[in-house]
C-alpha cells in the first residue's frame, strides 16, 4: 500500500517540520533504548521494580492460563493413553514388580538410616517452604529463560530463594514483585548450579545451555566417571540449595562431563514450592565483597568449597 499523501512533505513547512520531528523523536527513542540497554546489561537488577509491577499485573491472567494449560495437557495425555493401553499395561506390570522390590530395599535402608542417625544424634531439620505458587508462564520469545510464579514479596519470597517442584529443582528467584516473582530457570545460559552424582560424590557444575539441556562439567578432570542415566542432585555448595534435591539425568557423555536432561521440566510443572535459602550465612559471606578476599584454610580443603564462590558469582 502506498503511504498516505500526508506523509509526503512537499513544500509545506509544517509538514516538513513534523516529518523532521518524527525522525528526531524516533532517533531519540533509539538512543534512549541504547542507554537503557547498556545500563541493564551492566546492572541487571536496575529495572527489577518496574518489571515486578508489570508481572504483578499480568500474573492473575497467567494463573487462568496455567489452569487451562494443565487441563489441556491432561486431555491430550488421556487421548494418547488409549492408543498405547495394551503395551503400556504389560510394561507397567513389570515396572510395578521391580518397584515393589525396590520399596522393600528402601524400607530396609530407611530403617538402617534411622538407626545410624540415632547413633550420631543427628536430627533432620524439616524444610518448610516459604510459599507454594503456580508457575504462571515463561519468557517464550527471548533467548533468556525466565519464568514467572504467582507468589511474591508479600508471601515472603526474596531474591535468591530456590524454587523446586515435586520432582526436583526448577530454578532460583531472580526478582520478587509484590505478588509475583521472576525465576531464573536452570536452563538459562547464565545459570550455574553445583551438583553431585546421587550415588557417590562426583562433584560437578550444571550449567544451562539455553536450549533446554544442562551441561554437566566435572570439577575433578581425569577419567570421566559419568554414565548415561546417572542422576545428578544438588550438592549444597554455594549455600542456596539444600543438598540432595534431584536436578538432572545424564543423557550424553562429553570429554569433560556430560549433557543432562532436567528432571523437573517447567512445561509439565504446575505448582512449585519456594524454599528458604539453605545456608543464609554462607550466601551472605559469598555475596559480600568485603568478605571475599579472606579465604580461610577450609577454602582449599574440598573442591566444592573452592568452587562455591564462583558458583555464587556465576548465578547472579
Amino acid at each position: 500500500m502506498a503511504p498516505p499523501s500526508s506523509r509526503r512533505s512537499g513544500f509545506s513547512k509544517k509538514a516538513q517540520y513534523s516529518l523532521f520531528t518524527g525522525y528526531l523523536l524516533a532517533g531519540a527513542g533509539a538512543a534512549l533504548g541504547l542507554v537503557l540497554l547498556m545500563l541493564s546489561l551492566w546492572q541487571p537488577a536496575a529495572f527489577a521494580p518496574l518489571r515486578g509491577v508489570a508481572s504483578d499485573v499480568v500474573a492473575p491472567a497467567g494463573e487462568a492460563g496455567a489452569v487451562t494449560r494443565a487441563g489441556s495437557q491432561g486431555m491430550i495425555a488421556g487421548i494418547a493413553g488409549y492408543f498405547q493401553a495394551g503395551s503400556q499395561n504389560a510394561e507397567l506390570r513389570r515396572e510395578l514388580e521391580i518397584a515393589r522390590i525396590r520399596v522393600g530395599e528402601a524400607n530396609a535402608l530407611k530403617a538402617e538410616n534411622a538407626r545410624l542417625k540415632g547413633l550420631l544424634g543427628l536430627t533432620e531439620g524439616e524444610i518448610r517452604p516459604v510459599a507454594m505458587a503456580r508457575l504462571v508462564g515463561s519468557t517464550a520469545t527471548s533467548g533468556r529463560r525466565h519464568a514467572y510464579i504467582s507468589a511474591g514479596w508479600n508471601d515472603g519470597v526474596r531474591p535468591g530463594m530456590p524454587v523446586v517442584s515435586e520432582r526436583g529443582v526448577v530454578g532460583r528467584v531472580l526478582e520478587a514483585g509484590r505478588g509475583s516473582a521472576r525465576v531464573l530457570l536452570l536452563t538459562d545460559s547464565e545459570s550455574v548450579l553445583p551438583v553431585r552424582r546421587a550415588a557417590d560424590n562426583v562433584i560437578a557444575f550444571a550449567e544451562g545451555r539455553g536450549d533446554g539441556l544442562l551441561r554437566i562439567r566435572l570439577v575433578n578432570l581425569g577419567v570421566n566417571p559419568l554414565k548415561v542415566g546417572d542422576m545428578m542432585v544438588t550438592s549444597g555448595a554455594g549455600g542456596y540449595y539444600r543438598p540432595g534435591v534431584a536436578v538432572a539425568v545424564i543423557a550424553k557423555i562429553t570429554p569433560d562431563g556430560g549433557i543432562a536432561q532436567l528432571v523437573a521440566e517447567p512445561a509439565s510443572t504446575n505448582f512449585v514450592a519456594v524454599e528458604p535459602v539453605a545456608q543464609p550465612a554462607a550466601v551472605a559471606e559469598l555475596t559480600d565483597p568485603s568478605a571475599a578476599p579472606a579465604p580461610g584454610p577450609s577454602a582449599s580443603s574440598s573442591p566444592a568449597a573452592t568452587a562455591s564462590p564462583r558458583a555464587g558469582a556465576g548465578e547472579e
Partner: protein
Amino acid sequence: MEQLDPRARSDIYGRRINRTSSPLRRRSVPYASIMLGSVLPVLLMADLMPLLPSLGFLMLLGWRMVRPGVLPLWAGAPLGAFDDLFSGQPFGSAILLWSLAMIAIELIETRFPWRDFWHDWFAASLLALTYWSAALVISGAPLTPEMFAVAAPQAALAVLLYPMIARLVAWLDRFRLSRARTID
C-alpha cells in the same frame, strides 16, 4: 431501499447513515493489539526453550506495513518499553530495536512508495530476522551454537507468520474503523 437489499446503505465498516466510528477504538486498537502481542507469549506456556517469535514485534510490523500512517514514527520506543517488561530481554533492547525498525521501514517506504504484498512480506521478513538475531546477541546470554540452533524455529515462524499477522491486522483495522457510535 433496505427492503430490496439490507446492506444497501452499509459498507464493510457497517451502516453509514447516522453513525461514525468510535474515537476511543480508532486510537486504541493498534496499541492495544501490539501490547497484547507482547504479553501473550508469556502467558501461553512455560517451557524450556524459546518457541514463539516476538508476537509484539510482528504486530508492530503488521500495523506499520498494512496501515502506514496509523502509527507515528516514534511509536517504537514506548511500545518497546512495554515489551521489555515482559520479554525477559534486558530492559532497553526492544526500545532500541523497535525504534530502529520503525526508522528502517520509513526509509524503505520513501525508497519504494508503491509496494505490493510480496514486497511487504520480504521487507518484514528481513526485519524480523534481523530483530531475531540482534535480540539473541544482546540478550545478555553467551552466544553458543546451541542457542542459535534452538532459536532457529523462532526465525522460521517469524517469517511464516507474517501473512497471518497481516490478515489479523486488516481484520483489526476493520474493527477499529467500524461505525460503532450513533450520532443523534
